[in-house]
């Protein structure tokens, strides 16, 4: 027995290593915050063929997809490393025809030192959303008000992701006897040079499907697009400001420019670099009796110049959302307006689109785990591509009714 204790055999060592690994894994699992959500939909749609199936529908589900569908299955983990570093990974399955059944929408390492003298610094490295949306505030970049995001934020989820480095410096006035906080954000990034092509071909849409990092977005008449790739090697940037009055009002403004070389293209895939630049601004106001107002505005252009000729598509969009929360019930209504214009070198109005949308949603949060949402969405749009690519009339009115049942589990769900 003494020999056994003093000279452990190989199998004993392995067992000890396994035990140590199990203990380490258990410790890590205990430290990590995690969340698992499943969102199932029962829907009735009078929409055109979905953008995921090379259609020009402006809603997520086309007429042929009515019935029971997967809204989203999501797993998210935030794992701290040491005291001030956190790794966050957000992965989702959308139940559609992307390359992989599960895709990562965000994956980043965050550095969050303790606030000092009223200032707070946050640095993110990896892939994440730029701080533009005031609607998609819930975990998983979801809107807590409606199932489908506004036209502006749907586009951000489809084509934009910061794959790079972002720093945010906040002055915490509310922690030092003032009524407001101020923040500055700046980022440099790459792998976002095709951003804009979906606007120029399909136009704006309204849905909640976010493109995973290695995922694709369907385009009518073309091969699906991978929006997160580098073509010319130039880094893009954005800079933004944020002001908050207590926890009642948030104001955000941001300038984005991916600085893509509009003449660059990938010789193998034929993918082009789209120079996309825009300004965005938004406000969110919340009252003590459950009212919320969200308004956002976006104005910019996307531009290509392959082989010397230039094509430009200016775009703009806006929406206003009004929501009232009473206990576990919430009613929301939103009006969207959006348009993609034909700019320089594009007299044929190729890719232009104008439209507006009404969204109404009722949400019942039974408990932190279970949520039921009923959403009605009507989009009226006129798209040049419908006639040009699909050979149908440009004007379309699409209606989608969805009932979502969502179950959330995890340490982050309270």
């Amino acid at each position, binding site marked *: 027995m003494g020999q056994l204790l003093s000279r452990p055999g190989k199998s004993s060592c392995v067992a000890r290593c396994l035990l140590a690994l199990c203990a380490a894994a258990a410790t890590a699992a205990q430290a990590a915050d995690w969340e698992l959500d499943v969102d199932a939909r029962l829907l009735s749609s009078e929409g055109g063929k979905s953008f995921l199936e090379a259609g020009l529908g402006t809603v997520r589900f086309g007429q042929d997809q009515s019935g029971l569908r997967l809204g989203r299955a999501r797993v998210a983990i935030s794992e*701290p490393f040491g005291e001030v570093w956190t790794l966050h990974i957000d992965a989702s399955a959308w139940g559609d025809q992307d390359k992989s059944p599960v895709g990562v929408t965000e994956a980043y390492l965050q550095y*969050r030192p303790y606030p000092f003298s009223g200032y707070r610094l946050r640095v993110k490295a990896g892939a994440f959303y730029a*701080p533009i949306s005031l609607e998609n505030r819930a975990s998983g*970049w979801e809107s807590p008000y409606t199932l489908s995001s506004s036209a502006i934020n749907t586009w951000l989820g489809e084509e934009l992701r910061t794959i790079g480095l972002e720093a945010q410096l906040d002055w915490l006035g509310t922690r030092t006897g003032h009524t407001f906080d101020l923040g500055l954000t700046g980022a440099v990034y790459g792998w976002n040079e095709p951003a804009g092509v979906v606007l120029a071909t399909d136009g704006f849409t309204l849905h909640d499907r976010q493109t995973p990092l290695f995922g694709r977005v369907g385009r009518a008449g073309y091969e699906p697009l991978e929006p997160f790739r580098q073509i010319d090697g130039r880094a893009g940037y954005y800079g933004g400001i944020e002001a908050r009055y207590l926890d009642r009002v948030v104001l955000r403004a941001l300038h984005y420019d991916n600085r893509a070389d509009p003449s660059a293209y990938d010789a193998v895939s034929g993918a082009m670099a789209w120079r996309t630049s825009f300004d965005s601004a938004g406000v969110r106001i919340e009252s003590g009796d459950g009212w919320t107002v969200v308004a956002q505005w976006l104005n910019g252009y996307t531009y290509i110049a392959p082989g010397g000729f230039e094509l430009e598509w200016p775009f703009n969009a806006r929406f206003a959302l009004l929501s009232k929360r009473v206990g576990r019930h919430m009613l929301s209504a939103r009006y969207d307006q959006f348009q993609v214009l034909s700019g320089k070198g594009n007299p044929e109005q190729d890719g232009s689109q104008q439209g507006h949308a009404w969204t109404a949603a009722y949400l019942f949060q039974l408990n932190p785990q279970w949520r039921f949402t009923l959403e009605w969405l009507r989009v009226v749009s006129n798209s040049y591509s419908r006639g040009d690519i699909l050979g149908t009339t440009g004007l379309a009115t699409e209606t989608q009714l969805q009932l979502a049942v969502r179950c959330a589990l995890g340490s982050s769900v309270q």
Partner: protein
Amino acid sequence: MRLSARPHHTVGARRRVGNSVPLGLRLAGLVAALGQAGALFAATIAITVQEPGGHPLAGTVITVHPLGSQSQPAPAVHAVMDQVSRAFEPDLLVIPVGSTVAFPNSDSVSHQIYSFSPTKRFQLPLYRGTPYPPVRFDQAGVVTLGCNIHDDMVAFLLVTDAPFYGRTDATGSWSAEIPRGRYRVSVWHPRLRDEAADLQRELTIGETDRATLTLRLAKSLQPAPLEGRPHSWDSY
């Protein structure tokens, strides 16, 4: 924020009065009582705080300092500020100088508590449960607490060197038995907008058995923090 009235503070302040009076003062009081027929050792001080419209303001912190004489702070206490459902519970504590406060985390998510207030700077690295010993507060002043993970979590500690203190109840009132004399009465609330000078009054407790003071604020409070929003709403 739940700045509700905490009647136990009022009770506690009353209880502490007897313990906090220095022996010399007690003897002086006894001599005075013997020397002046009819004079009583202690009297009741009753403070009422109202909002500009006259509504009572519950949860306001009252501190009472003697004027013209040295005083000892109230005895130190051992307090607890828990973290429940991503909020500090309670979100306001008044403690005498030298007190300790434990910060357990009863949530299933980790918290990382900090203060950068000059009164007391400290950090409790990422934790669940109660891995750290209580924190001691040796300097009078306001300490603003936050969580470095959940930015919407905020709480306040008022560390006081006053011998008498408490918080107003649902009727906006606080009272205590204190020795006769001259005092400076101060009120504090995290959402006050009045100038600091307007939040203090001098009060002399002479022959009467009961001294009352009603302080009506000139400016309405800042809006209370929003309640009832799911925590997951502040992810971006």
